[in-house]
């Protein structure tokens, strides 16, 4: 049916094939996406339709939605609209639940097939839709999904939120951004010929190309003019359509204007109320509008044929007429049998110039948006409601409070504070104490902690402060002070809060947690733990899943973190996860998984993460769990799965969330290192160092260690060490060492352990095998009860002993210990590394080593060549054949200079001075 309506498709065959193959080609997460960008009229929607039809034939379930440009669309509009076509209505229980419910509905529609979600005009997508899209593309919804979306390129100017999203997504393997260019001269001529039929005067075709600039929509309309014998070609699209308007029957013109004022699609019954014509005349008029190529008729209603057409017509409708049309739309929507779409109703009443009648629907739309956790959209509605009322309207007080709260909920801190100021100036404003508390809460969320602290103090001092409010202020202030590391002050405020009468259980939990944490940090861990255990009891008595979650979270964090009682922390976290609300359960399981990873129980950590992912986390919780899981994959040596989770994290971060970038980069480096991709590891670490604040000591520690290790491994493999990168890494280690003095005791212990690892790696990079720093690092990590880094340090300790060729026997124990740990954890690449060292130096890892399956041993280098790296041995072998440095370089694909460096090292290690001597050692050993 599309063909007659659409005209021929010219010059897009290749693109069409490419889109389909990209969509079919799902990434590791089971999802794929193609974003089509291009100017209006370049044929994006057309390609969407063609692809949808082809994919439907290829047994994809296809779901289509269009984003609206009415400015205030309801949250998730295009997706919910698409789902409604399949009779799915989504009613969430909480914010995370919403995404889960939508995914479930999508899975049902798919019914086991792959699902293609087609979204047109994505530039108008609301924030909730963008976030849903990222959630689904990250594979979190467990929907085998392909997304095909069209974006108007003109809209991507400036600070459009999609710009950033597309820039991040285009790096992923399963996402393509295709920029649709206009047709070239030949293609335009082909299109003109196809429409005008027969032969076209080359001069005419050339004119069409020039005037359309290769825009197929415009070219097509110009070609029709040519075919219909309009001698003088119109210069602009505007003229084309305006001249067609003149040919329209009056009734058809009325239909066209009515649709232009509506929100598409306009259903027939609605249109019948807008255009007061008898049924048969109306149908006749619609038919004429379709014939003149203004309107298309589809199952769900009427639309104008193209956005460009509606833009032209918008100028043709008189303001008074538009007002009347909007009023009729509003009345038509209100008189319907079903609950009206409040967003739409609000749109029409506002444009009908009826603020008083618009207000109830705007408020209803705001509440609808809040029910779907679309606080950005809700905030816009509350703001609109404020615009619709004047200063002395009594409802303004309530509206201001809602506007402030929704702004706070969607992260518009400045706005929230400004609204609160407006609220404070009203005669019927809430109490001063109440206002201080709200302001403090908003300021805390905005990270302006000094001001927030002052507000809490004001609240406590306010004469109208009730006992409950006072307890709440003190408890929240204590929580803030813990966050700022001011444990003595926090301790005092928390005690105050606990002594006050009338505190709610939520505030009691909060205050106890702050008290416990601050006590533990002030070197009275036993007392701190007691208080936190009490907090858990209080929360369990209240039975509120959020409070239970908070209490368990603090207790688990304290145990697994500063107190380093990891195993107990894991137990507490897992117990809490069974009782806490959804969000807290995810966070508790993340703590448990991280703890299990650290103590080396990787299989158990894997199981916990499995459970956690079944809770269908979203947002920051999902990112944290994905990062934890990815760390396991890196440890297990499953590079493919690690890539999948890193891609998923990158997808989610495309919507924002900078604080997770560093852990992501660390894991990228770790994964690259096992794959021997040093430059990739180096780049990730360097970027991380560049973007870290100097007070993130632990983060710098992990990063710097990864970076130094990458340089050391590169060096050992005979690859280039980057001297600049090395210098910066050493500077970071110095900075860490300087900063560690001022850190809390618990932090210092971890930082020191990383510094030990870093210093040991430096000795390795510099080619001075020294077991001492490695032994120290192993000891430090033993004390932290973290077997993985401890075992790693033992491997290097053994390696250094073996390289020195002194007291070889002392290497056996650490090497075997490291191997046992690696095997127990399932750390495959690490175990393989140990085996290769053992083989190189002929150390038996176990008494029955022969029964352990191992890769075929490398050519036996003999003891004398044991000090050489793999690369150096290759160079030596070539040298012994009598090749020159240049010839060796050509054979090994390295530069002549690098060969020279290797030869120098070989001479040093073998203690020879000539090539002949070196060759002799090699031939003897072989």
């Amino acid at each position, binding site marked *: 049916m599309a063909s007659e309506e659409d005209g021929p498709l010219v010059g897009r065959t290749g693109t069409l094939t490419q889109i389909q193959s990209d969509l079919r080609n799902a990434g590791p997460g089971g999802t794929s996406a193609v974003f089509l960008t291009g*100017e209006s009229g370049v044929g994006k929607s057309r390609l969407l339709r063609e692809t949808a039809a082809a994919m439907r034939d290829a047994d994809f379930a296809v779901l289509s939605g269009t984003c609206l*440009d009415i*400015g205030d669309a309801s949250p998730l509009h295009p997706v919910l609209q698409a789902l409604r076509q399949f009779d799915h209505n989504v009613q969430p229980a909480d914010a995370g639940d919403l995404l889960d419910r939508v995914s479930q509905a999508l899975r049902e529609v798919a019914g086991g097939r792959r699902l293609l979600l087609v979204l047109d005009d994505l*530039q*108008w997508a609301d*924030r909730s839709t963008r976030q849903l899209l990222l959630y689904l593309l990250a594979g979190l919804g467990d929907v085998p999904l392909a997304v095909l979306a069209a974006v108007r*390129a*003109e*809209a991507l*100017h*400036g*600070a*459009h*939120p999609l*710009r*950033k999203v597309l*820039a*991040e997504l*285009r*790096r992923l393997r399963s996402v393509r951004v295709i920029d649709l*260019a206009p047709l*070239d001269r030949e293609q335009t001529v082909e299109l003109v010929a196809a429409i005008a039929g027969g032969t076209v005067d080359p001069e005419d075709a050339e004119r069409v190309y020039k005037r359309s*600039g290769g825009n197929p929509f415009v070219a097509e309309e110009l070609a029709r003019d040519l075919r219909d014998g309009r001698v003088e070609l119109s210069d602009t699209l505007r003229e084309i359509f305006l001249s067609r308007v003149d040919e329209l029957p009056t009734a058809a013109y009325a239909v066209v204007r009515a649709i232009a004022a509506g929100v598409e699609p306009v259903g027939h019954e609605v249109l019948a109320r807008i255009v007061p014509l008898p049924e048969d005349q109306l149908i006749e008029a619609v038919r004429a509008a379709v014939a003149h190529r203004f309107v298309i008729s589809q199952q769900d209603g009427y639309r104008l044929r193209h956005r460009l057409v509606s833009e032209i017509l918008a100028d043709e409708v008189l303001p008074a007429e538009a007002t009347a049309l909007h009023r009729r739309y509003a009345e038509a929507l209100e008189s319907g049998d079903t609950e009206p779409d409040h967003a739409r109703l609000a749109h029409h009443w506002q444009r009908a110039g009826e603020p008083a009648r618009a207000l109830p629907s705007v408020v209803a739309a705001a509440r609808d948006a809040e029910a779907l956790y679309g606080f*950005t959209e809700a905030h*816009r509605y509350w703001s609109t409601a404020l615009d619709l009322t004047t200063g002395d309207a009594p409802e303004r007080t309530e509206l201001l409070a809602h506007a402030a709260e929704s702004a706070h909920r969607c*992260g*518009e*801190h*400045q*706005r929230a504070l400004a609204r609160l100021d407006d609220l404070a100036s009203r005669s019927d404003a809430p109490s001063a104490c109440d206002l201080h508390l709200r302001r403090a809460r908003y300021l805390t969320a*905005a*990270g*302006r902690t000094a001001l927030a602290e002052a507000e809490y103090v004001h609240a406590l001092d306010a004469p109208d402060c009730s006992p409950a409010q006072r307890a709440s202020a003190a408890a929240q202030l204590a929580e803030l002070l813990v966050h700022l590391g001011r444990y003595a002050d926090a301790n005092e405020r928390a005690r105050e809060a606990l002594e006050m009468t009338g505190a709610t259980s939520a505030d009691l939990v909060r205050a106890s947690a702050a008290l416990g944490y601050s006590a533990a940090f002030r070197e009275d861990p036993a007392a701190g733990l007691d208080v936190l255990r009490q907090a858990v009891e209080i929360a369990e008595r209240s039975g509120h899943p959020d409070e239970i979650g908070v209490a368990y979270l603090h207790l688990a964090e304290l145990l697994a973190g500063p107190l380093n009682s990891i195993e107990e922390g894991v137990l507490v976290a897992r117990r809490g996860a069974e009782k806490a609300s959804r969000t807290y359960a995810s966070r508790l399981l993340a703590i448990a998984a991280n703890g299990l990873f650290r103590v080396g129980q990787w299989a158990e950590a894997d199981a916990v993460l499995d459970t956690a992912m079944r809770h269908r986390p979203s947002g920051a919780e999902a990112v944290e769990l994905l990062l934890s899981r990815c760390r396991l994959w890196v440890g297990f040596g499953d590079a493919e799965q690690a890539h999948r989770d890193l891609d998923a994290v990158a997808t989610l971060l495309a919507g*924002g*969330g*900078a604080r997770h*970038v560093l852990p992501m980069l660390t894991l990228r480096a770790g994964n690259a290192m096992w794959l021997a991709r040093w430059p990739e590891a180096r*780049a990730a670490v*360097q*970027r991380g*160092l*560049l*973007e*870290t*604040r*100097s007070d993130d000591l632990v983060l710098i520690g992990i990063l710097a260690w990864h970076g130094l290790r990458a340089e050391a491994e590169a060096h050992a493999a005979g690859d280039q060490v980057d001297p600049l990168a090395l210098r*910066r890494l050493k500077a970071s280690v110095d*900075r860490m060492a300087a900063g560690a003095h001022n850190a809390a005791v618990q932090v210092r212990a971890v930082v020191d352990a990383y510094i030990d690892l870093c210093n040991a790696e430096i000795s390795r990079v510099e080619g001075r095998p020294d077991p001492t720093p490695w032994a120290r690092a192993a000891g430090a990590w033993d004390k932290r009860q973290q077997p993985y880094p401890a075992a790693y340090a033992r491997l290097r300790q053994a390696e250094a002993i073996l390289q020195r060729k002194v007291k070889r026997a002392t290497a056996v124990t650490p090497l075997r210990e490291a191997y046992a740990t690696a095997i127990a954890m399932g750390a495959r690449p690490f175990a393989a590394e140990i085996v290769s060292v053992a083989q190189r130096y002929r150390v038996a890892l176990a008494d029955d080593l022969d029964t352990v399956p191992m890769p075929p041993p490398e050519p036996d280098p003999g003891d004398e060549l044991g000090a050489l790296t793999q690369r150096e041995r290759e160079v030596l072998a070539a040298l012994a054949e009598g090749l020159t440095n240049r010839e060796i370089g050509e054979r090994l694909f390295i530069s002549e200079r690098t060969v020279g460096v290797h030869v120098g090292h070989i001479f040093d290690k073998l203690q020879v001075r000539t090539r002949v001597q070196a060759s002799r050692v090699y031939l003897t050993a072989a």
Partner: protein
Amino acid sequence: MTQSVWGPVQREMTDLLQGYPDDVPAVVDQLTKLQDILTRVPPLLLENPLCDFNKLYLTITEGVLEKLYDGEFKDPAFLSRLDVEFAARYFDALRAWAGTDMSPRCPQVWSSLFARIPGPDCRPLPSACAGVNAHINYDLPFALVTTFDHLGTEPVDDSDQHHDYLVINEIFADSIPGLRRGYLEKWQLLIDMMNGCLDDWWQGEAVEYTRNVAWRNAQKLWCLRNDMGALDKERAGLDRVATDLNRLLLSPLGAFLQ
């Protein structure tokens, strides 16, 4: 297909712009390669006005990178994002450039500079300034908004981010030879010769160079960022004002600055 505006280096240009740098070292790398390509655009070769700007911008970005490595910024994550976002807009403009009246998606202010690549020749200082004007007065506010949006923070005066932003401004001011007192007086004279909108927009902030103009504009845009219609109107307005200034800089009057 689009016409080849870059002449013999068209292919290299297209290939280079396939890249979307995502950290500061990658931005420096892309600018370095771009510099090499730009020096080969006929007929002016290394004398073309974009070359003058790119060279300056490369120097500045290298300065930023150095300060980042030296840990001289309060919020390096913010600054790195900002630098990447900022550069992305310049590369976007280059991508969209297909010749005068053929580049609907290229901001006017950049078009006005790109259009002068084939000549007539103008002095290096006003050329570089025209690029700086496009980049700071048009691109920077949007880059700031996107960066804040990405990081989940807001443009608040006297914040760490504001501090870092001002450091960048200093690097810009330091890197333009003679862009201090003497230069500014002439600059002020030029502005005085203009009337109307440019004067309003400038609001007497010339003494601080364009320092806070972009920051203020970013704060204004921040409030509008979810309102696509209003945002686009504001964008077009900024583009217009900055374009007017560029016309002036690239006119024979601009030579007066050097």
